[in-house]
């Protein structure tokens, strides 16, 4: 308990400094509204339903895009590691797509699917798929051939090999790729909603900022930051459970 408290002490200090800086006019209240105002604005936003409505929309987009990326990206990486022709066919594509800033695709996805949920889900899916694919691919390629031989000598066929040996072997790297994807999904969500949306966290941040409700704007930013943090912590707990067999 005390260790957890100590760990987050810097955040508390930052919060106090923030409040003080705004109250004492060290920074203009316009640039940095006092934290207490931000908190009050947050309560208002929740009460109005604005935060919940936009939040649910965002979460839906995030989860849909993220799950699609994990499913398709993971399967693609394992398949590429298993079949050489597929590897040869898709590797150049993955390599080309890897360094592309995915936010550059925002206008493209809007062009294809409009301003609604579809374009956000597609963007998150495309952006998050690459780290998952690469993680699954590298993990599967690194699976020990002696384990494969072992399983074969115990009668495992091709499908069982994939399921029993290749997939678990790939798991540590795959799960690291998924963690990267999780962080990316928040970035892509908010940036796409800022630019091209009538709903969602990003839209709300932009809208409040444009209308001078800076306390509200900060409230939404902090909410997104907290959600991203919580998602990552939760993911780490899950990951540790999945990898409990690792040394």
């Amino acid at each position, binding site marked *: 308990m005390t260790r957890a408290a100590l760990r987050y002490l810097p955040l508390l200090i930052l919060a106090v400094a923030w409040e003080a800086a705004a109250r004492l006019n060290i920074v203009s209240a316009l640039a940095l509204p006092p934290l207490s105002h931000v908190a009050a604005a947050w309560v208002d936003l929740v009460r109005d339903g604005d935060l919940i409505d936009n939040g649910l929309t965002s979460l839906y987009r995030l989860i849909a895009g993220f799950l699609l990326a994990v499913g398709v990206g993971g399967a693609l990486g394992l398949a590429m590691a298993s079949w050489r022709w597929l590897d040869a066919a898709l590797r150049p594509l993955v390599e080309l797509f890897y360094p592309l800033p995915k936010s550059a695709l925002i206008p493209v996805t809007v062009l294809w699917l409009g301003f609604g949920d579809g374009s956000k889900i597609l963007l998150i899916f495309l952006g998050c798929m690459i780290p998952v694919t690469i993680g699954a691919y590298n993990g599967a390629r690194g699976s*020990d051939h*002696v384990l494969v031989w072992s399983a074969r*000598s*115990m*009668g495992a066929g091709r499908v069982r090999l994939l399921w029993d040996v290749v997939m678990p072997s790939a798991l540590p790297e795959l799960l690291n790729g998924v963690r990267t994807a999780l962080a990316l999904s928040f970035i892509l969500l908010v940036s796409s909603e800022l630019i091209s949306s009538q709903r969602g966290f990003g839209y709300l941040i932009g809208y409040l900022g444009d209308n001078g409700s800076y306390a509200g704007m900060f409230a939404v930013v902090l909410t997104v930051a907290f959600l991203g943090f919580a998602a990552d912590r939760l993911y780490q707990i899950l990951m540790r459970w999945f990898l409990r*067999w690792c040394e």
Partner: protein
Amino acid sequence: MDDQAQIVIDGVTHTYRPAHGRAVLALSDVSLEVRAREFLALLGPSGCGKSTLLYLVGGFLPTEVGRILVEGRPVSAPGPDRGIVFQHFALFPWKTVRANVLYGLERQPLSRPEREQRAQAFIDLVGLGGFEESYPSQLSGGMRQRTALARTLAFDPSILLMDEPFGALDAQTRALMQTELLGIWRRTPKTVIFVTHDVQEAVYLADRVAVMSTRPGRIKTIVDTRFGDRNPSILRSKQFVEKVDEIWDLVRVEAIKAQEDTAP
């Protein structure tokens, strides 16, 4: 004698072709017969192709020149009639001891309780009772190799292929495991091909020792090493020491050749 041979290796030549680098002739015209329930050691310096020969019998590598018959049928793929134990255990690290041992039983015509019972019996046999729910990463090297042994013995292969199984263990554990392996082999007789570069180990464990020459691997000679009762006390007997010396002389030449081969 011929009709008793369970494994027939006949004129096998194998070329190892790495993805990068030049091809190496690993085995040249190797012929060998192993009788049912015989314990045969394949002895030779590292790089003599003894593991390659084992992998060919296991069906992990394709036989290109010559033929390998097991129970009269040519080997084409790995199968549960030939269990293998590797030097580095090859346990599934994501499975517990119990799950590892159960894995080989999954495709056997047994009911679930029968499988569980059989797995437990072999875990107990190798002295790992109480560690059923441990992961390999939580075990010592000796315990990992016991688990691997239990896993392979549990699905009851008639042939046991062992690839320097005690090579990664410390001297004390190795001595213990050797004696234990003999005990298990006496209780559940199997045909064993045991790859090793340790002369003493080969003489202690095997009925016959096939001494291999280095690069390309050939069977140089086969030495009968059957003594009366095998127990650790024979390790100090005159008969045993003489046998070890005799084989050591055969191997020495090859070991020196192998060293010269790998010297820069």
